[in-house]
């Protein structure tokens, strides 16, 4: 194929003609032979060519025409030769017969043949069957291998039937055991797959959204669904281990049982503020007892330990889930070969079309989006040379970036200070003074201020970024996301500081206060999200129907996903102080899903800009993980260092909440010497530093392995390219030899040598010898005929 394309280009460019002219070394006595050859060839190919008679004057066109006819025969033989090359014989590749290798080979084999070539395929299936017997395989491996074969369903069924029937004939006892175990495992996997369908919530809604808008908008809704599903086990944990025992305690043990009448009764306003009626229910930390729940005699359920351990339990669960999901996402979507050229054009052509699109509007938009992207790339590559910025421009650009970061930092500081002031003035003071400020407004002031800041400050950020002139739009997006999340993190950090440093010392039951604050933050966030949906999407649609110049809104996927990250981090922050917060968050997510789903379909239009859903998904999970860690640190700070309130909660008389655990461990240490030894060893500095050094070594080792793999990949690439060139070179050589050698064969002797030397493209002595020997070999053959 290499030489084929070479030859075709030769034909096109006329290079071949030039080379032929160069190498033309005819003597007039060749013409007769030439004519005979021409006649024979013409007879063979059935063409009627007006070939000028044997006349040394035009050897040019004569031999060109002849060679063209010969080339077609040559092409045919080259194709056959190429198909015999070892690199095409993929089923002869020596590989170790492991199952993954086998599956890959099955895929490669099945592709290497044409699917219409039924006969060849049967051979391959037989060879595959033989090899499956070699490997100690179980039914699920067979099923997996069959399922991933890229052939039609009917053939797969036949193959599976044949393979399964073959399996059953020659089973020894151990194999039988493995077979039954494999079947059992397969059944459980099917059951699991069936149950997973329960979590296939809202798939009809997702189909509609994906059909109209593509995967970018659908990715927001999928992320929402994932966060919701993550909250369900957390809810079950807290409900099962904390809320239910507390309810039982309330109603069966305490006297008087139930909720005390002296506290406020339920009015509607509590949904908004979370205080009032809810303060003295299971909603908040302050309500939980520090005694042991004893419904069944002699079975003590100590609330103190339960509270801390459940807390540890759900944070651990979230950590594992998030870590696993981030790694999976990173591996799936971010497979980076490291430092090599990026695949702009390939991605555009082969991953550009979104197969999920079903509406005509979205498909037209997608096509124009791809067209725009190509135009942009074309312009970009043309402009690269012309875009050498002057020194002055670069200075100006960097000065502006410096300035904008200063502005960002000052905005962050300002928002932090504002949050702090509002908290002091409006949240704490009324509680302490019982002054005449309106209760609802003052308690809601801080969340409203926070949400307003989060609504308007990012607009300033967007303005700054527009003027910063990033080279690629994705950098602009990343910087904006970073600044947005930094703003949220700053405000939350200020709040946490406020709660732990000030509220903890001023207020009587500060944990319940913290829980209430977080509840209010969650509710106000929900209100603002719904408000945004209403004003920015619905009203804009109404306006666009009246005024033609205003267009409908695009769905701001990035912004909304970051809001989800923020709300989930609020949930983690507040879990310790408000155990029923997951319920609120689950309801909030369900409401948001339905509102946004209907809003998007009715009010928004698909976006023209391309959105790299997979890369940004990894980034969102990354942000979620980072915020989770920050929340853990904040809550850990509260547990380990801050003094619990004296009058309420499970840790009434302790110095820190964690003290219960240290007391337990101390008691174990007193009782048991072995435990004491073990603990003192584990907590000794030597052990911990040794552990850290060991982890560092593992990290360094894996990094070195990765770097060496990367280098190997580069070397393989270079090798591959040069192998391709080898093939071209050799085929070229053979071609030249064959063409010239056949003609020069009529005149063996010194002329042959000269001809060979002249046409041989290789410069080395060995190359010339090779060419000569091949030519001579070709000469002997006709002589023998």
């Amino acid at each position, binding site marked *: 194929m290499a030489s084929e394309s070479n030859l075709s280009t030769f034909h096109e460019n006329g290079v071949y003609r030039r080379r032929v002219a160069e190498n033309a070394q005819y003597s007039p006595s060749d013409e007769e032979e030439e004519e005979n050859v021409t006649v024979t060839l013409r007879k063979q190919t059935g063409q009627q060519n007006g070939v000028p008679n044997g006349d040394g004057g035009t050897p040019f066109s004569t031999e060109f025409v002849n060679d063209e006819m010969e080339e077609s025969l040559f092409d045919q033989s080259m194709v056959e030769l190429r198909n015999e090359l070892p690199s095409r014989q993929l089923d002869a590749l020596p590989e170790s017969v492991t199952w993954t290798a086998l599956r890959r080979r099955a895929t490669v084999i099945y592709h290497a043949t044409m699917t219409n070539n039924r006969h060849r395929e049967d051979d391959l299936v037989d060879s595959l069957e033989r090899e499956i017997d070699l490997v100690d395989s179980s039914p699920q491996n067979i099923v997996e291998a069959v399922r991933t074969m*890229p052939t039609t369903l009917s053939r797969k069924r036949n193959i599976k039937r044949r393979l399964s029937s073959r399996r059953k004939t020659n089973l020894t006892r151990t194999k039988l055991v493995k077979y039954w175990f494999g079947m059992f495992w397969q059944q459980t996997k099917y059951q699991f797959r069936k149950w997973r369908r329960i979590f296939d919530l809202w798939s009809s809604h997702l189909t509609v959204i994906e059909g109209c808008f593509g995967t970018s908008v659908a990715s927001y809704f999928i992320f929402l669904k994932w966060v919701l599903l993550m909250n369900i086990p957390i809810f079950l944990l807290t409900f099962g281990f904390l809320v239910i025992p507390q309810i039982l305690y309330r109603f069966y043990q305490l006297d008087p049982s139930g909720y005390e009448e002296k506290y406020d009764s339920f009015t509607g306003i509590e949904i908004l503020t979370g205080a009032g009626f809810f303060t003295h229910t299971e909603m908040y930390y302050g309500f939980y007892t520090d005694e042991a729940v004893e419904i069944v005699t002699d079975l003590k359920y100590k609330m103190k330990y339960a509270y801390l351990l459940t807390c540890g339990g759900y944070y651990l669960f979230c950590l594992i889930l998030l870590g696993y999901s981030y790694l999976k996402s990173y591996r799936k979507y971010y497979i980076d070969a490291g430092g090599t050229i990026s695949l702009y*054009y390939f991605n555009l052509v082969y991953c550009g*079309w979104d197969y999920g699109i079903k509406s005509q509007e979205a498909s037209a938009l997608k096509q124009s989006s791809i067209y725009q992207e190509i135009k942009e790339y074309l312009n970009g590559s043309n402009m690269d040379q012309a875009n050498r910025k002057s020194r002055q421009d670069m200075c100006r650009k960097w000065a502006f970036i410096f300035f904008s970061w200063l502005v960002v930092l000052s905005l962050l500081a300002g928002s932090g200070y504002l949050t702090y002031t509002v908290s002091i003035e409006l949240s704490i003071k009324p509680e302490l003074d019982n002054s005449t400020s309106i209760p609802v407004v003052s308690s809601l002031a801080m969340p409203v201020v926070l949400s307003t800041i989060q609504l308007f400050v990012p607009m300033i950020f967007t303005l700054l970024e527009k003027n910063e002139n990033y080279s690629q739009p994705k950098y602009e997006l990343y910087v904006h996301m970073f600044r947005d999340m930094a703003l949220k993190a700053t405000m939350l950090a200020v709040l946490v500081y406020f709660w732990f440093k000030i509220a903890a010392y001023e207020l009587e039951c500060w944990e319940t206060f913290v829980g209430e604050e977080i509840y209010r933050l969650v509710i106000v966030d929900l209100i603002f999200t719904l408000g945004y949906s209403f004003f920015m999407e619905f009203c804009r649609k109404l306006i666009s129907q009246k005024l033609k110049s205003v267009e409908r809104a695009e769905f701001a996927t990035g912004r909304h996903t970051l809001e989800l990250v923020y709300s989930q981090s609020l949930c983690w922050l507040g879990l310790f102080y408000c155990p029923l917060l997951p319920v609120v968050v689950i309801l909030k997510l369900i409401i948001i899903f339905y509102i946004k789903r209907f809003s998007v379909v009715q009010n928004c239009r698909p976006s023209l800009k391309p959105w790299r859903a997979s890369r940004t998904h990894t980034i969102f999970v990354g942000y979620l993980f980072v915020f989770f860690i920050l929340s853990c640190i904040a809550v850990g700070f509260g547990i380990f260092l801050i003094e619990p309130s004296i009058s309420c909660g499970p840790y009434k008389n302790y110095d820190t909440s964690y003290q219960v655990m240290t007391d337990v461990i101390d008691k174990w240490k007193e009782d048991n010497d072995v435990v004491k030894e073990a603990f003192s060893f584990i907590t000794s500095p030597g052990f911990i530093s040794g552990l850290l050094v060991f982890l560092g070594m593992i990290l360094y080792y894996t990094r070195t392995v990765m770097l060496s793999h990367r280098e190997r990949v580069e070397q393989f690439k270079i090798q591959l390219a040069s192998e*391709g060139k080898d093939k071209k070179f050799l085929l070229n050589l053979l071609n030249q030899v064959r063409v010239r050698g056949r003609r020069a064969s009529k005149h063996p002797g010194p002329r042959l040598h000269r001809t060979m030397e002249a046409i041989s493209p290789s410069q080395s002595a060995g190359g010339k010898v090779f060419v000569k020997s091949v030519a001579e070999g070709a000469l002997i053959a006709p002589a023998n005929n």
Partner: protein
Amino acid sequence: MGNKVVTFTEPQLEAYQDCTFFTRQDVLRVFKRFRELAPELIPDDMSGELASQIKIPLEKLEEMPELKENPFRRRICEIFSDEGNGDMSFDDFLDMFSVFSEASSRDIKSTYAFRIYDYDGDNHLGKGDLEKTLVALTQNSLTQEEVNFVVNKVLEETDLDDDGMLSFVEFEHVISRAPEFLNTFHIRI
């Protein structure tokens, strides 16, 4: 109400479950969609060989909402049909949606993607194939020299052995580095 008409026998459903990435309920749901395309052609009872014999013609398949807006719909139907002419039986239909489903592996998706984009069927993505793909994507709105430019750029990025075409091995190697592929090569049914 008498005996219910069973669409598929138990062994059939089990075989479908084994050979595709679908569960039983998915198979029945896909069958419902299949039937909606041509209710007069498809009987209630699909036991025996009917599932692989009765074929829905290409024109009806192209009107399906999932495929209607896809510029490659004809190629997709041709690849997944048994005889290569685009008429699909239920087996082919199920196979198609199984490959496009979320659960199918990257390997099988890249194999079928390669076949779909290989217009001339020579097991290589040459310049002609690339050009046709590009034209289908942009509905012929690019000039010839822009098309040539993009085709050359794609080959520059991905052609490892420098032969002017993409073989399957090269394609698969590059696809595994393309993060968007699994996301976009996915049809929900």
